[in-house]
Structure formats: structure tokens, C-alpha cells
């Protein structure tokens, strides 16, 4: 096949590209420029938006022996990921920008462009496995449970996944680093990127403050009694315990958690842990990574609500548009806006954006 290897400048995408070459594909390396001003979103060499990273990607392509180009996706990234991140926070939800980036950039804008230019697929260094099963080509968790990225890929529909190749899904990260070294890729020991690539120093709250402004509002308990003040409701997340700075002490010293964020009134509601308990989840904009489940049928499976969260045993059903989940055990603290991903064993069934918790 003729494929585009998306190369971030990190070790994973470099090894993925090298493996794609070995698998016999005709590979062209592409680095995505996600900011029109490379230093705009972040400085230092940790993220995916720096001059150093594009040089690292170029050098890796040289070593592997493939052509290399830079594609300007700054506009798409800003509109599809950064603005979405801001508007979701402003609306009191907690978005996951990596999900949006996979959905709107890597496997939409890039894959579309690649297909139009005559390529068949996009290769990335994500840790997930595509397998041929009785259900067709389906996506499964990676071999390395610590690196498994099937959660952030669950926003891809069947058509997108048909154009996706993940050569690292069957390998542990430490093996990938060894392999990079063996292949002479000097990014072999480059640290993993963490945090959100466009937020400098990983400090979400101050980044949001700079962009959404500071607006003092009340922190109240479940009865509406004011317990303190905050500088912007959007910097809180459901289930948060630290950094509340409450002026009224809790009765009996019982810890208090963020229960609710009300963007319209700029109010943060706090309360005891029990009030955070969630047993039901509703997600909208369902996406199926393989065959769609039948409507109005109850299925047993697992829900995952965070990138590195545990799978939670559940019963789920769908009407085609939304997914409704009943958890076996309550979950404490769940923000709307996050991704709900449904698994059948290690197979990814699909995903939805959490719109309500029960």
C-alpha cells in the first residue's frame, strides 16, 4: 500500500514508520505543523509543536530512508481542537483534546488529504491493535496495558479505521525504545510527551485563565450556602478535591469535592464524596469502531471514561445516536464532556461524548 506515516518527532511514530517500510508499504513521512507559529502553543522540546520536534521527525525519516514533508494543519487544529477545548471548558465540561485531534486532524484532515493524493492509509505510533475477526476488521487494546491508547482512538468510525495502521499495538513500549536504538534512531530515549501539547508547562488552569478571563464566582454546598470564591468555574473539574480554598470549614472535617459546575451562574457546587456517586451514564454522538450494536438491546461490556481509567463492568444499550450505560458498581466523580468508550473484552465497540450522569 501507499501510506502516509504521521511523524511527531517522537520515538513511537518513528518506529511505526520504520515498521511500515519493513511491512512492504511505500511510506512517506509527514510531520503535522499544528501551530502557524511553532512557539505559540508551547516552548521547550516536550510537546508536538516545536521546531525541535519537526527536526527530530525529519532526522528519523532520513534514517529510515523515506521522503519527508511538513503539512500545515494549524488552522484545522486551532478550529477543531483548541477552540473546542476552550468552548467545552467555558460550558462547564471537561474535554479530552487528544480524542478531538485523532477524530478531526489525524484521521480526518490528514487521512482525507492522503486519500485524495492517492494514498491508502495513515500510519501512526498509537498503541492499539487492528485485527481481522468474525466481525470484520476490529480495534483492540494494545499488548502493553500501560501504553494502551485504544481509548483515544475510539472516536474513529469504521471508514476512518479502515485507513489506519497501528504497527506498535503488539509491542511493549520498552521494546519499542530498544528497537529505535537498534535502528539508529536517536529519538530512542526521547521522553514521552504528557499533558496537553498546546498548553505550556501543563498548567491548564492558568492557560484557561489567560484565554477565558478571570471572573469571580461563588463556591456553594448542595443547599446553596456559600463556602468560598473561585476565579473562574471552568478551571474546576468534577471530583476535584484539592485547591478549593474554602473559607468555611467542613463539618467533622469530611473532605469536600466538586460536584457540579454551572457555567451560566459561574457557580461551583461542592459536597461529600457520596454525592459524586454515578451509576448511570448517557453519551451522545455515538461512533462505532466496528459493527454497530442493535438498537434497544441490552449488552454486557465495560465502560471506560478516562484515557488511563479502569474498565468498569456495565450493561449498555443504544438507540443508534446515544449510548446509555448502567454501571455494576458506582463511580465517584465523572465530568460531562469526557469520552465514554465501550469495550467488549479487549475489543473497542464504540464511543460517545458524556452528556449526563445519573
Amino acid at each position, binding site marked *: 500500500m501507499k501510506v502516509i506515516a504521521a511523524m511527531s518527532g517522537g520515538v513511537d511514530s518513528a518506529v511505526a514508520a520504520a515498521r511500515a517500510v519493513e511491512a512492504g508499504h511505500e511510506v512517506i513521512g509527514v510531520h503535522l*505543523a499544528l501551530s502557524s507559529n511553532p512557539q505559540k502553543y508551547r516552548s521547550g522540546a516536550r510537546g508536538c509543536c516545536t*521546531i525541535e520536534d*519537526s527536526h527530530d521527525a525529519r532526522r528519523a525519516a532520513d534514517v529510515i530512508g523515506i521522503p519527508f*514533508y*511538513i503539512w500545515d494543519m494549524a488552522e484545522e487544529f486551532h478550529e477543531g481542537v483548541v477552540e473546542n477545548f476552550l468552548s467545552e471548558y467555558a460550558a462547564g465540561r471537561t474535554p479530552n483534546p487528544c480524542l478531538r485531534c485523532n477524530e478531526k486532524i489525524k484521521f480526518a*484532515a490528514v487521512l482525507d*488529504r492522503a486519500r485524495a*493524493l492517492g494514498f491508502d492509509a495513515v500510519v501512526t505510533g498509537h498503541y492499539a491493535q487492528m485485527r481481522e475477526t468474525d466481525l470484520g476488521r476490529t480495534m483492540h487494546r494494545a499488548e502493553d496495558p500501560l501504553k494502551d491508547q485504544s481509548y483515544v482512538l475510539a472516536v474513529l468510525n469504521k471508514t476512518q479505521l479502515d485507513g489506519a495502521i497501528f504497527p506498535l499495538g503488539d509491542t511493549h513500549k520498552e521494546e519499542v525504545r530498544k528497537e529505535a536504538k537498534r535502528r539508529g534512531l536517536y529519538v530512542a530515549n526521547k521522553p514521552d510527551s504528557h499533558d496537553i501539547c498546546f498548553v505550556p508547562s501543563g498548567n491548564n488552569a492558568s492557560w484557561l485563565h489567560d484565554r477565558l478571563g478571570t471572573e469571580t464566582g461563588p463556591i456553594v454546598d448542595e443547599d446553596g450556602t456559600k463556602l468560598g470564591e473561585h476565579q473562574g468555574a471552568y478551571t474546576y473539574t468534577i471530583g476535584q478535591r484539592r485547591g478549593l480554598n474554602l473559607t468555611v470549614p467542613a463539618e467533622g472535617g469530611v473532605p469536600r469535592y466538586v460536584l457540579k459546575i454551572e457555567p451560566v451562574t459561574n457557580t461551583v457546587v461542592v459536597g461529600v464524596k457520596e454525592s459524586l456517586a454515578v451509576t448511570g451514564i448517557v453519551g451522545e454522538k455515538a461512533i462505532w469502531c466496528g459493527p454497530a450494536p442493535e438498537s434497544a438491546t441490552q449488552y454486557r461490556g465495560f465502560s471506560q471514561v478516562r484515557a488511563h481509567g479502569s474498565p468498569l463492568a456495565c450493561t449498555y444499550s443504544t438507540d443508534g445516536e446515544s449510548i446509555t450505560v448502567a454501571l455494576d458498581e458506582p463511580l465517584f466523580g465523572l465530568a460531562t464532556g469526557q469520552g465514554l468508550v465501550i469495550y467488549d473484552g479487549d475489543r473497542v465497540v464504540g464511543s460517545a461524548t458524556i452528556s449526563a450522569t445519573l
Partner: protein
Amino acid sequence: MSSYFDHAATTPMSKAAIDALNNQISQLGNASSLHTQGRSVRKAVEEARESIARIAGASPSEIVFTGSGTEANNLAIKGFYWKRLGEDSARNVIVISAFEHHAILDPVEWLEEHEGAHVIQVPVTRDGIVDLEALKDIVDHNRAKIAVIAIMHSNNEIGTIQPIKEVVEIAGDIPVHTDAVQSFGKVDFNFDQLSATSATLSAHKVGGPLGVAALILRRGIDVTPILHGGGQERDIRSGTLNAPAIVSFAAAAEDADLHRIQRYSELRAMRRYLIDSIRAVLPDIWVNGDVEPSLPGIANITFPGTESDGLLLLLDAEGIASSTGSACSAGVPRPSHVLLAMGLSERDARSSLRFSLGASNTRSEIDHVASVIESVVDRARAALARQ
């Protein structure tokens, strides 16, 4: 089949230049040393200087060797600015054309940000010629405040040759610098006849080696140096002379000069053949800056409805090397500031590709381009339409 159409970026070294480089690189000696070996290397450098001066219509003492064209342009721009501002603190205006190379634009921008310069850009016409009426207006209104005027001799992206003689007449006693990197050895370029104050030449654009260039600086005129040290090159550019590269530069210049008129007509005909061959399959293309006089081998073509980086990728995969204009430091393609200055829309500027031909190109290479260009453009159009 591999076809190189990016000779304006760099062009193969001529055999004469390779031989000269190989010969000189084994010679021991620092051209500044006083002993026999030093004098021997100095002799080779001075002969090279005389040769380049003769071809460029300058006198040998006017040639200041530098490490790159960018360095020569920086030396002229910053050197004139600091020198003339030092003489008269009101002289902080720099006048440049709107489509100068980044080796002029960026030092000028830097002086504006850090050294209090005020920059005035002279507009260019849709055909890619600097607007002399506008220049005259600017000079008339700012004469006493202008430190330096810089207008390129020929544009590197579209090839049009600029009326430098007329610019010098308008400038009067204001120094005029001209970046002649693309012109030297390819079209008639005579420093003395132009009466410019300084000009930049570069070896690797005429079949010489990388890493050597020259600033021609009129006799009796000084600029503030950027590099201080051993006092080489009239105390204007310190640094041990790169004798092998300088000797090779001269050999390349001699070779280019010897064949210049013949190559000009060959390349001009080859360029026309390329344009006609592409137009035969894609009638809606147009050529930017398609006027006389121009550099012989540059064809800047707009392929409406495409993204030029998609075109470049697909042509590269067919073994055809072309260019999209400039990229930022991280390598992100930018719409050409040259084409924007000429009045093209950002969309059309992003759909344009430069083919620059050199002596090595053949008609069969152009036939190869013509045979694949339609399918390449179709795919590039589909890619843009999907966005």
C-alpha cells in the same frame, strides 16, 4: 527518471569548479601569512578575486569575500544602516522592494525590531517589476532620512530583472544595494554600469561550491563590519579566507561567463518548451512574471485549485524536483510573499510552483513532466477540494 528543476536553489558544480577546488584544497597555507606558503595561497585568492571582479564589472579591491549570500546581504544592510545612522542620527529609514529575498527582508525586519529602523517597502507591479514611480515618491519625501535602498537585481522566485540603473538615478547619493545572486553569470550584470553602491554574488548559484559568496562594495565606501577579528577583506569582513572555495568560485564564474550567451538562449527556449508542454495538457495554468528581461530558466506557474505542497510531494514521487517558495523555520510551507506582493490572492499564491532550469536539463525531462502533470494536478485538486 530523476529530473532536477530547482537550479535556483542550487545548481551542480561545473567540472572546472570541482577541479579547481580539488587542486587548491591540498595546498597548505593561510592567505594572511607572510611566508612562502601564505603568499602562494594569497596569490591564488587574488587571481580569483581579479577574475570575479572582471566578470562582474568591478575592480578587484571592490570584492569582499563572505561565507554566504545571506552574510553578504546582512553586511550590506546592517553595515550601511549603522554606518549612515552613526553619521546622521536622522537616517533611520531603509527602503526595500516588497519582494526581496528573506536574506534582505529578515535583517531589515530585525533592524526594525531591535535597532530603531523604519522600513518602507516599494510596491511591485503585477508583472513583478519594482514600481519606480512609487520609489521616486518615497525617496522625494524621505531623502534626508534614508540610510540605504535595497532592490534585488533579479527576483529568485519569478525571475524578473529589476531596473537597477533607474533606481540608482532616483537614489542620487543614497547607497543602493542590489542582491544579484540569481543574475551573476546568467544574465548581463555589470556593477560599474549599474552604478550601484554594493551587490551580492554567490558561488553555488553559478556552479561553484557552497559556503562562499561576495559583497561587491564600491571603492572608498565603508560599512560597519559585523565580524571583527583578523582584519581580512579591507577590515570589513574578518575571518581566514576560504581559499579553495574562492578559487573554485572564480573557476565557476569563468565557466558561466564563457557560456553565458549561449546558455541563456538555450535555457530560455527550454523554459518556453516547459510552459507550452504543461499548458497543452492544463490550459488554465498561468505564468507569473512572464516578461522580458528575465532570468532564462525560471518558470513560476500557478495551478489553480491546488496546494503547491501537494503538487511538490507528488512530483517528487515521480522523480521531479521543484520548489514552493519559502518555508518558515519549522518547515511549514507559506504562501510566497513575492506572489502576494505582485497582487496574487493567498489562494493563488498557495497554488504556485517554481521550476528553475539549468544546463543539465533536457527536453526528455520536460516531456516526463508533461506526461505526469495532469494526474498530479488532478490529485492535488482533489486534496484541496476535500478540505
